[in-house]
């Protein structure tokens, strides 16, 4: 590819010599010790009985109704907040990139998205309790100014809808951050060319915009899904242990073996790795497809 410089000549075939690998040894040692082995230990444990025999019973036990329910609610909340976050985030990003708004809007949105996508966990739960909780500002404003009792409608912040609404607070900004570069990749010339050929806005999006953008859109949605699926702190601070999602179940299991079977806990973790793993592999594959257009 590039011309061999003096350094590569001097260390001819350097990348093949074992000593060159010493430079990355600390990194890989660290990754093995604190990332790969701990995970591998759990995966192995998922296939063992308490006294170390091989078994598939733990995986079978995952089909217990309460565990299945926990996975289901987790997947539903993650999917709802990922799809909602993706749609709203994409609209916001599009409005900032191609909406013809003043120039200061875009950097402001990007900075704010950087902050909000990192404003998760316990403080986020507090913020939503102070806003939409029973004595929160919005709840109070609705009943005082409009005579509308939010909680009489059956709304509860400590529920599916409440948690999804809270997750959107970091999901939407994350989508904005991921999608804005992809939107920049939509070339103006394509739009102009399609207009010259007489295409309507709908036709432009149907035949050009979305086909180019869909791997980015879908990939980002999957990333958002995994992001919500692994979240613990927000849900725990918001609902305590009243909402049966899989991260909170696992948290309780680590704390006090609520499943009364350590190895079933490992299987629970394995199930989570599989779900986030599949969605991330799909994301990486889709990103590869999306990059074809950005060259």
């Amino acid at each position, binding site marked *: 590819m590039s011309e061999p410089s003096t350094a590569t000549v001097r260390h001819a075939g350097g990348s093949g010599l074992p000593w060159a690998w010493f*430079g990355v040894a600390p990194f890989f040692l660290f990754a093995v010790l604190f990332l790969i082995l701990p*995970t591998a230990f759990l995966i192995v444990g998922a296939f063992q009985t308490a006294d170390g025999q091989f078994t598939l019973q733990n995986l079978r036990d995952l089909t217990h109704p309460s565990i299945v329910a926990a996975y289901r609610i987790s997947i539903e909340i993650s999917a709802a907040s990922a799809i909602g976050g993706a749609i709203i985030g994409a609209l916001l990003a599009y409005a900032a990139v191609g909406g013809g708004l003043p120039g200061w809007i875009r950097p402001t949105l990007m900075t704010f998205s950087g902050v909000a996508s990192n404003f998760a966990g316990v403080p986020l739960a507090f913020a939503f309790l102070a806003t939409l909780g029973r004595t929160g500002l919005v709840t109070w404003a609705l009943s005082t100014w409009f005579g509308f009792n939010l909680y009489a409608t059956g709304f509860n912040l400590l529920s599916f809808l409440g948690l999804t609404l809270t997750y959107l607070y970091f999901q939407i900004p994350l989508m904005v951050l991921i999608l804005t570069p992809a939107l920049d990749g939509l070339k103006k010339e394509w739009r102009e060319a399609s207009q010259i050929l007489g295409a309507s806005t709908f036709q432009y999006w149907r035949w050009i915009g979305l086909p180019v953008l869909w791997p980015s859109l879908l990939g980002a949605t999957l990333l958002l899904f995994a992001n919500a699926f692994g979240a613990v702190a927000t849900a725990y*601070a918001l609902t305590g242990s009243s909402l049966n999602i899989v991260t909170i179940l696992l948290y309780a299991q680590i704390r006090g073996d609520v499943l009364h079977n350590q190895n079933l806990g490992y299987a629970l973790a394995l199930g989570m790795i599989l779900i986030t793993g599949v969605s991330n592999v799909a994301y990486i594959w889709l990103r590869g497809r999306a990059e074809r257009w950005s060259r």
Partner: protein
Amino acid sequence: MKKSTFGPWLAMILGAAYFLIPLIGTLEFSMRMKRGVYSFEAYKVVLGDPRFQESFSYSVMLALVTIAIGVLLVVPTAYWVQLRLPKLRPVVEFVTLLPLVIPAIVIVFGYLRMYNSQSWLPLTDTRRGTDLLLAFGYVTLALPYMYRSVDTGLRAIDVRTLTEAAESLGAGWATILFRVIFPNIRSAILSGAFLTFAIVIGEFTFAALLDRPAFGPYLQLVGANRAYEPAALAIIAFVVTWACMGLIQVFGAARGTGSKS
């Protein structure tokens, strides 16, 4: 091209409303502690709480240790991959992305199984050992962001020429790394560092499950027992996050104008 900006404005206004109302709501709530008047009483109570001071300074210390380990681990690796082992780049990138794939709670679960008191390396036996394990855990959590940031910084400079120039002047590898490479990617390292700080300072899962007195578990504890203080703490946490992101912008902008060649 005639185009209405009504839709985009509407989207921005609705978006701004969704993001600002919880902040306003939290601020308003945090000032309601004294009956009938707005006051900063909740902030006074929180800031005067010795457990706040202890847990916050504990987390700040931990963040600094995490940043130090993370930088010393990531910069030489990214540098070496760029210079000598470009074929290894996809593998290293894949490893740095793993913490986004494996949920944090699963990683810490693995730690508890692998480094417990009956294991070959019983880190959780002592407090210092657990602190170290927690810092290592945070290094893994921050790895995707730190690596991205440093790698982007390294791509923007001519690593090969800088290395050769230093080598021909007789510099050893430590001199090259610390006196040539580090200063040249300072803003990238700082970006990664501030992002790491923002992640570590309020982190809950790792600290709670390793049972260390960090800021995240303290927040959770206050949230479960108090009414107005949590809102004040949320505002404080938001300001800290905002400060970190602001500092990234400042240093990022400095890089943009400074090294334009």
